[in-house]
């Protein structure tokens, strides 16, 4: 026979479709008809048109074929559905355990899914999201995290130098103002300073006003809907004047829709960038790293290629500057910014948590599915006869498999309905915990309903997989002859599943314990300074001139112990860094990166830091303001100095003398190790004031501070905070994760226990007679309880052996995120194991005690 060329054959996909969907009545003749006519057309007008014809025919006949299928198959389907619903109704306890387990599992999954979806949606609402990026600087020292902030002139310079960059803007967040309209006065702290291009680059929709010109005026302000409501009520806000700090009037040139929660930039007021100059900031010169630089690329340039292009740009400005620039895509800022000086850590997250929570979601669902599998197979005896009868009247194995898959799908969809209800109920609570505003809004994103259905189907198939294979394997002959006994191999499989389930639970218990320990450890760790009763205030604009006066006024109050100032908040990094360092006895090969902080007199006293050698800065030594330095212990150790006090040290051309060594303190968050630090007075770049107060009469002291401050700086609001609260916020993200982690672990364990409870119920039921016989022969109740429980507890012990190394590996990895961490203690593992053991024991004992106490007369009559 002549081999037919491929193109001469009917299109395979269409043919497959037909085969799949045709009813038995017309399947064979129809395929034949089509093939015959196909070759006819082939010979008449060529294979191409024949293939087109064939596809068209298939497409046209699909609707009727599908209706056929439904007709042909509904008969059995109805029967299966009826049986499934009956079996749900008949065994209420069993169905309750299965459905509630699956429902809780799915609800967890859905919540986590919504959470992940929200995390991934950050900043995606900008139309240009793929073309937008933030310029980030790698400041040339290995081991340093890149800086999220860049220098003042950078964005404009880049835009002029590289044609790929179409638009650029600088932005700065924060600062507090007293805003007034008529009689309404509020303190506002969610402010952004940005250049006119800002609203053209980002998509913050305007309700009123023109985005192109809104920030062009020197005295214009753009406000959000909420603010418009707050200040103007029903009035038209456009063109109205808002007064800032009782000094300057700003005209409202635009009203924005409220900023979406999934924006990394959060603000209520957008002000012209040049306003910062009036507030005393240098916005023109290199060296001032106070701004985020955002760029918009043209349509043909990818972020990566633009990033490569600009990377060495700083060298063209300053030949010895080895800063590497790169562009961080806007969409990555939320999850991938562990940069220095980034937007508030509270608002930024970490992509690792996405993975962690996704795995927890899967764990919980998996545990629920295991429940289903175990309970269904443990109960298989009850269904054996049904399966046998079906087989006798002509069902083949495939039919039975389909039936039980169908049944597990029914279960999973009933559970899915409950899960949706649970999600609706608990969403407000979950939002509270995760500080999000999630909704179960299926209309917005087509992916959400798809995912939800996906979860339901996945659960149905996963939990139906093993039972359907197992139940369909029954041999009718054996079952009907009553020779049916539980296959010992099957119960091994069940044991394996329980072990897996408990391993997961133990893993989660260990995980939460370690996370809890680590966070407590961070909270309570000695930082090298006393963080309690310490108040800080930003030192901006005119107040700088008044600093000494205010300080002296304050010190007159007996509740105020001491006052100082520094360039940085403690644990929020340093002011500058240099490796252009020389000292007596330095090895010329050696390069040390030294971090610098500017301080004022009384710094060490106010912070309660200890000097290990020498002295702190003192007014009695005139030279201290100009040529004295203090190093931390780490710096001395890295430099290898034996008697540092009195040694000369130079930074570039500047010469200084080491007058003291301070005990190491954490000047960055505890994610970082303590690095070499130098403290000087010469720069006098003091950005924050610190006041050490006595713990009694707190509110009076603050009132006093405020009145003095406002007396000297009427135009600036008194803005202050407590250092210990500030430090707490550094780990807010970890705290949030800890709470969520705790809840999900609890649920996972709860579901495991539900399953174990059910299993214990069925397995003891199966041994009713055995227990009766044992009792008749003289076994005591405790003996029987031990005998029955031993079985289950063996599995839990075994689960520990699996969970420990896995937990060790992963938790060790997580702890690597912290420079300062609690070790993984064996106690944690033992305790977690013991906890799981106790929970399992409690769960099982109810059943076993009940069984052991049963009257043997009843037990022996059983069946």
């Amino acid at each position: 026979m002549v081999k037919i060329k491929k193109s001469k054959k009917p299109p395979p996909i269409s043919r497959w479709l037909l085969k799949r969907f045709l009813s038995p009545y017309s399947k064979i003749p129809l395929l034949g008809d089509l093939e015959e006519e196909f070759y006819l057309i082939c010979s008449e007008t060529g294979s191409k048109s024949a293939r087109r014809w064939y596809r068209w025919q298939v497409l046209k006949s699909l609707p009727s074929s599908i209706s056929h299928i439904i007709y042909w198959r509904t008969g059995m389907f109805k029967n299966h559905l009826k049986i499934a619903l009956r079996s749900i109704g008949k065994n209420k306890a069993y169905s309750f355990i299965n459905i509630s387990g699956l429902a809780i599992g799915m609800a967890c999954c859905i919540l986590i899914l919504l959470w992940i979806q929200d995390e991934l949606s950050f900043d995606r609402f900008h139309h240009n999201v793929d073309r937008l990026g933030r310029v980030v600087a790698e400041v040339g020292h290995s081991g340093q995290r890149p800086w999220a902030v860049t220098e003042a002139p950078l964005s404009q310079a880049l835009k002029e130098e590289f044609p790929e960059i179409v638009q650029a803007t600088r932005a700065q967040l924060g600062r507090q103002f007293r805003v007034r309209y008529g009689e309404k006065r509020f303190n506002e702290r969610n402010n952004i300073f940005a250049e006119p291009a800002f609203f053209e680059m980002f998509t913050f929709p305007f309700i009123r006003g023109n985005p192109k010109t809104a920030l062009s005026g020197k005295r214009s302000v753009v406000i959000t809907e909420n603010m418009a409501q707050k200040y103007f009520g029903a009035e038209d806000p456009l063109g109205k004047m808002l007064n800032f700090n009782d000094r300057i009037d700003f005209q409202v040139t635009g009203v924005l829709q409220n900023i979406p929660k999934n924006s990394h930039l959060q603000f209520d007021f957008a002000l012209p960038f040049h306003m910062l100059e009036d507030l005393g900031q240098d916005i023109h010169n290199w060296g001032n790293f106070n701004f985020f630089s955002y760029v918009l690329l043209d349509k043909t340039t990818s972020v990566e290629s633009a990033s490569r292009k600009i990377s060495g740009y700083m060298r063209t400005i300053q030949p010895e500057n080895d800063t590497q620039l790169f562009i961080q895509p806007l969409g990555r800022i939320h999850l991938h910014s562990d940069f220095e000086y980034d937007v508030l850590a509270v608002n930024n997250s970490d992509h690792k948590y996405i993975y962690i929570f996704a795995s927890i979601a899967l764990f919980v669902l998996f545990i629920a599915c295991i429940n289903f599998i175990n309970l269904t197979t443990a109960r298989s005896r009850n269904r054996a006869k049904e399966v046998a009868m079906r087989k006798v009247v002509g069902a083949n194995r495939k039919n039975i498999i389909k039936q039980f898959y169908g049944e597990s799908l029914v279960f999973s969809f009933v559970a899915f309905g409950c899960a949706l209800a649970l999600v609706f109920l608990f969403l407000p609570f979950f939002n509270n915990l995760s500080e999000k505003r999630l909704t179960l809004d299926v209309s917005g994103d087509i992916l959400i309903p798809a995912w939800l259905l996906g979860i339901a189907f996945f659960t149905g198939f996963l939990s139906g997989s093993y039972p359907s294979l197992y139940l369909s394997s029954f041999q009718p002959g054996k079952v009907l002859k009553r020779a049916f006994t539980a296959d010992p191999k099957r119960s091994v499989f069940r044991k394996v599943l329980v072990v897996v389930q408990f391993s997961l639970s133990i893993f989660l218990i260990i995980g939460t314990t370690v996370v809890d320990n680590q966070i407590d450890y961070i909270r309570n760790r000695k930082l090298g300074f006393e963080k309690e009763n310490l108040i800080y205030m930003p030192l901006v604009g005119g107040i700088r001139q008044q600093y000494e006066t205010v300080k002296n006024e304050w010190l007159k109050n007996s509740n105020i112990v001491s006052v100082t100032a520094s360039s940085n908040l403690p644990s929020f990094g340093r002011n500058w860094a240099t490796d252009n360092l020389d000292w007596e006895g330095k090895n010329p090969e050696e390069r040390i990166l030294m971090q610098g902080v500017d301080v004022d007199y009384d710094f060490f006293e106010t912070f309660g830091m200890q000097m290990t050698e020498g002295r702190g800065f003192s007014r009695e030594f005139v030279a201290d303001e100009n040529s004295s330095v203090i190093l931390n212990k780490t710096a001395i150790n890295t430099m290898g100095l034996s008697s540092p006090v009195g040694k000369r040290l130079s930074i570039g051309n500047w010469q200084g003398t080491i007058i003291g060594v301070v005990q190491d303190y954490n000047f960055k968050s505890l994610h970082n190790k303590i690095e070499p630090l130098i403290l000087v007075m010469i720069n006098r770049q003091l950005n924050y004031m610190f006041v050490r107060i006595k713990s009694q009469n707190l509110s009076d002291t603050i009132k006093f501070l405020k009145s003095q401050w406002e007396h000297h700086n009427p135009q600036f609001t008194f803005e202050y905070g407590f250092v210990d609260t500030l430090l707490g916020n550094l780990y807010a993200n970890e705290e949030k994760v800890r709470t969520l982690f705790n809840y999900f672990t609890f649920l996972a364990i709860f579901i495991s226990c539900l399953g174990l409870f059910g299993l214990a119920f069925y397995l003891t039921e199966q041994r009713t007679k055995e227990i009766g016989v044992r009792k008749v022969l003289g076994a005591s109740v405790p003996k029987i309880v031990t005998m029955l429980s031993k079985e289950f507890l063996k599995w839990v012990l075994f689960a520990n052996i699996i969970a420990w190394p896995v937990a060790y590996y992963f938790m060790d990895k997580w702890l690597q995120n912290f420079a300062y961490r609690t070790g993984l203690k064996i106690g944690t593992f033992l305790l977690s194991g013991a906890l799981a053991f106790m929970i399992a024991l409690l769960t099982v004992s109810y059943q076993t005690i009940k069984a052991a106490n049963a009257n043997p007369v009843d037990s022996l009559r059983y069946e």
Partner: protein
Amino acid sequence: MKLLSSHDEIFLLAILKLKGNAYGMNIRREVSKATGKNWSIGAIYDPLYRMEKRGLLESYLSDPTNQRGGRSKRIFKVKKKGLDALFEHKKARDRLWKGVKAAIDSQSH
């Protein structure tokens, strides 16, 4: 007895016309030729199956042939009941048609 639909009528006539050679492809070609509409093959089997269930038609599978990729044809034959229905249908129609032409002519004047 249930009346035939005009689709049924067309199919029955086509099968009768094709004599012993009435199977899917031929019926489709015949019907397409007569109506000037391109019928899809899948749409043919549905009404045929329905009529078979009503007892108007019978069908059997022929031996597989090579030119059809080794698949058999389902060959249809009109049963007595089908033939009766067809004539019944024709009679009813003729009765109605009588006088219709005159009515249309008088209306258009």
